[in-house]
């Protein structure tokens, strides 16, 4: 591990952050070791039923992705269209990659608490599973998340769509605010011009 160089910036919270980052890093290492132990000692393979379940989740997610792609404004967004969904204690973040057709996929980040033994690809934003043409098949990556999505699909879909609406509504609000500010500026500029003429 590289040593954190917090001297690059000053402030009181840095030491705390450094300690926390070390603790998180050490926990992450332990987590990886445990995962390797699980893989080595108890090899678990996907059943035919698991494969069908993953395919089903994939189909559902890609259907929503394709529906988003039909909306011109969303289709033009280059960054992933991120939509957080919370079901009970489980916080997931769906990232719909809408821009590049050749790499069409949906990434799901987060951790499904009751299925934690299989979560493997941890990083700061949580475990992630990718569905679509880049789908990383396998029990370590997607199966447990797929099971959770499958069990809660109707609620998740509703949340995804309502979150998407909320995001666009926020954009609309921001645009309206911006237009009001610009209008006021233009009005003031117009009055200024009129006064000058007088």
């Amino acid at each position, binding site marked *: 591990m590289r040593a954190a160089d917090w001297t690059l910036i000053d*402030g009181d919270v840095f030491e705390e952050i*450094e300690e926390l980052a070390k603790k998180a890093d050490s926990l992450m290492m332990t987590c990886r070791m*445990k995962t390797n132990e699980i893989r080595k000692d108890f090899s678990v393979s996907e059943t035919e039923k698991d494969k069908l379940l993953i395919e089903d989740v994939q189909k559902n997610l890609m259907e929503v992705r394709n529906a988003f792609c039909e909306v011109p404004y969303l289709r033009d967004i280059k960054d992933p269209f991120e939509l957080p969904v919370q079901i009970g204690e489980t916080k997931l973040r769906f990232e719909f990659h809408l821009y590049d057709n050749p790499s069409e996929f949906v990434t799901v980040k987060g951790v499904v*608490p009751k299925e934690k033994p299989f979560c493997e690809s941890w990083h700061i934003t949580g475990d992630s599973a990718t569905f679509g043409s880049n789908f990383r098949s396998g029990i370590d990556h997607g199966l447990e998340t797929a099971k959770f999505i499958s069990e809660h699909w109707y609620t998740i879909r509703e949340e995804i769509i309502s979150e998407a*609406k909320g995001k666009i509504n926020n954009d609309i609000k921001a645009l309206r605010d911006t*237009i009001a500010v610009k209008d006021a500026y233009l009005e003031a500029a117009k009055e200024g011009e009129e006064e000058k003429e007088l």
Partner: protein
Amino acid sequence: MTDLITISYMSEIKCLSEARMELEYQCDRQDYRIGILRPSPSAKEEEDAQALFTEVQNNLMSLRDAFRSADYLCGDLRIPVKIDDTELNFVFKLQDEPLSYVLVGGVAPDAKVSCSFSQAYGRNSTICFGEHGSRWSLETARFISNHWTEIKEKILIELKRQIEEDIETLTGLVNAKTEYIDEMTKAMEDKDL
């Protein structure tokens, strides 16, 4: 096959999207009108703007460099910061050296009127500092500069909160994996017996 619920939801989203695009068009028209009214910046104003931009860029990149020095922090570090009515989202790109930059999304109130230096609405308000930095960010750069101490503190507090949340989740993961290993070991031992 797309069911009726999805079709109905998606038609709402399409309507919203059209409304958004119409507003964006209005904004562009206003920008054009403001552009005509606004005097071109003087050489001195240009120089000041460049100095301000460089100052903000250096501050943000120093934070980014510090974050990059910790192995644990990797990928995109997303930090929302709220100052009064202004909500900014800082995205520190920490992965590859060629991608060394910090994105700032959101709208600084002062930036809303500016046309020639910022596109200050919706997703287009994302501003990039670093190698890909653009000049279309003066008003937001000014906002960040004016509130830098507060913004830096909020970034660090939010980062601390995020790591603490990670620690909680990671602790849960380690415990769950340990429990699973114990259960599986016991089951195998029982089978052997």
